[in-house]
């Protein structure tokens, strides 16, 4: 569980987030949407400590984030950044490093860590390619590998920064299925998304941002009916066969 109360944050002297109040629900998918540069990624980075908090309070697992170490935060919150490297490792090796926050001295993975990694690999359907190097995989397989790593982290909260970037439509649809499965596992999923119809389709709740502020929080239907989508994105959306589409 995470909660942000009146949080101001940014990078160095540059303040980006203003008066953020945010508490995603357990077992639900919360989408963060907004125009470029509105602070969506910074919101996720603030939660994991990659941005500087200037004011307010962040609660992680019911405790003030300032009182927790990086490892303790990582045991509560898994974070998948938008830009990921392609390290010279196999799928199995990368997924196993999801247990890194649980490592203790002598800093070696235990039998149970290997077992949890194996389960995560199977769950993501990566077992047949577990010995392949990441560089040999497609964009979708790489993304699934990193999600398996996040699963292996065994944290109740998963933050994803634009997970559908660089994926073709088929892989985007598969990824949406995986995100829903994560929520069904009672994980709190928070994801930054650029594709509005996709966000409307998979998210239980939307958080609309503009200029570093949260303009709206609520269901996708409420977001459209409130007019905040039109105000922030300057586009109209309507429902067709139960799905939101852009209105040209």
């Amino acid at each position: 569980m995470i909660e942000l109360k009146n949080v101001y944050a940014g990078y160095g002297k540059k303040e980006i987030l203003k008066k953020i109040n945010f508490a995603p629900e357990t077992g639900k998918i919360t989408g963060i949407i907004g125009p470029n540069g509105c602070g969506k990624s910074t919101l996720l980075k603030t939660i994991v400590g990659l941005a500087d908090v200037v004011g307010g309070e962040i609660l992680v697992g019911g405790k003030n984030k300032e009182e927790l170490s990086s490892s303790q935060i990582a045991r509560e919150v898994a974070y998948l950044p938008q830009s990921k490297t392609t390290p010279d490792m196999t799928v199995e090796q990368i997924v196993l490093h999801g247990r890194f926050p649980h490592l203790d001295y002598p800093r070696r993975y235990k039998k149970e860590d290997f077992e949890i990694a194996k389960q995560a690999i199977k769950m993501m359907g990566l077992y047949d390619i577990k010995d392949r190097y990441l560089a040999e995989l497609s964009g979708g397989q790489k993304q699934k590998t990193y999600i398996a790593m996040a699963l292996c982290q065994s944290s109740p909260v998963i933050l994803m920064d634009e997970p559908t970037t660089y994926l073709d439509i088929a892989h985007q649809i598969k990824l949406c299925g995986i995100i829903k499965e994560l929520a069904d596992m009672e994980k709190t999923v928070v994801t930054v998304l650029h594709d509005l119809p996709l966000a409307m389709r998979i998210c239980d709740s939307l958080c609309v941002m503009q200029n570093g502020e949260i303009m709206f929080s609520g269901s996708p239907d409420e977001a459209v009916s409130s007019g905040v989508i039109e105000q922030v994105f300057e586009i109209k959306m309507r429902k067709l066969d139960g799905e939101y589409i852009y209105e040209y």
Partner: protein
Amino acid sequence: MKGLKKFFLNKKLILLFGILVLASAAFLSICVGPSGIGFADKTIIRYVRLPRTLACIFAGAGLSVSGAILQRVLANKLASPGIIGVNAGAGFGITVGYVLGAASGILYSVSAFAGAVLAVFAITLAAYKARAAKTTVILGGVAVNAILNAATEAITVLNNDARIMNADFRVGGFSAVSYVRLVPAAVMILVALAVVFTLLNDLDVISMGDETARGLGMNVRRTKNIFLVLASLLAGASVSFAGLLGFIGLIIPHFVRRVCGGNGKTLITASAIFGAAFLTVSDLAARVIFAPFELPVGIIMAAVGGPVFIALLIHKKGGHAND
């Protein structure tokens, strides 16, 4: 055919091959010398050939692992202790230490380490302040390299006592190695390697990028600093008795990644083994090729390693990611 190729490219077999080459080269290094072949003269073996062989093993492992760490932490495959000024820093530290009276023993090794640390933190601090790109970090290192070499030259010119920077030291060689210099440096290398082997998972997580590493609960800046100190310790201690051997820290990690893949455990273990083997073989060649004359080992390494490195870069087939 494919199965046969896979068999010969098995990591364990490659490591075993490296160990065999190292053991054979070390055996020959102890047997062969200007005074003859064999074990007859125990004094020569004990005080000349054995320390020299051990020096090759420790310096080869130390510089190669240092290069592998720097390439991972700075996320740049061109990083190596010779290129970014770590070796030059060690040389500067030794020269300053020499002028101040630290001519041998632990103080000699410590002054090399201090110089190496000075260089590596000058580079990383400048890179951090400037939020520099990967290439800029290397170029900054080249500049630090030039500055420290110039400072060392200046001290040598101004102070006649600081004659440590002779030709053998500049190119790198083991003709004057002794237990007095080797033992404290070898202890430093062993301690640093032992610590590195406890942090192999951390090294892997660093290679996933700063943001992912932070998401996995790593204190990225602190961990990187620990690795930079360890890389400096390995390079500084090696330079203190081997001189400015620049090439090995660049080519061995490249070779290892190409043939074995590059997760932390494989990279560090294989770099240590192949670095030690390559330096021992090169030193043997330096002693034998023009016997009774002897070449500084750095010349042999550059002559053999240079073309091999270029060949590795050209023939990328079969390599792993991020090469």
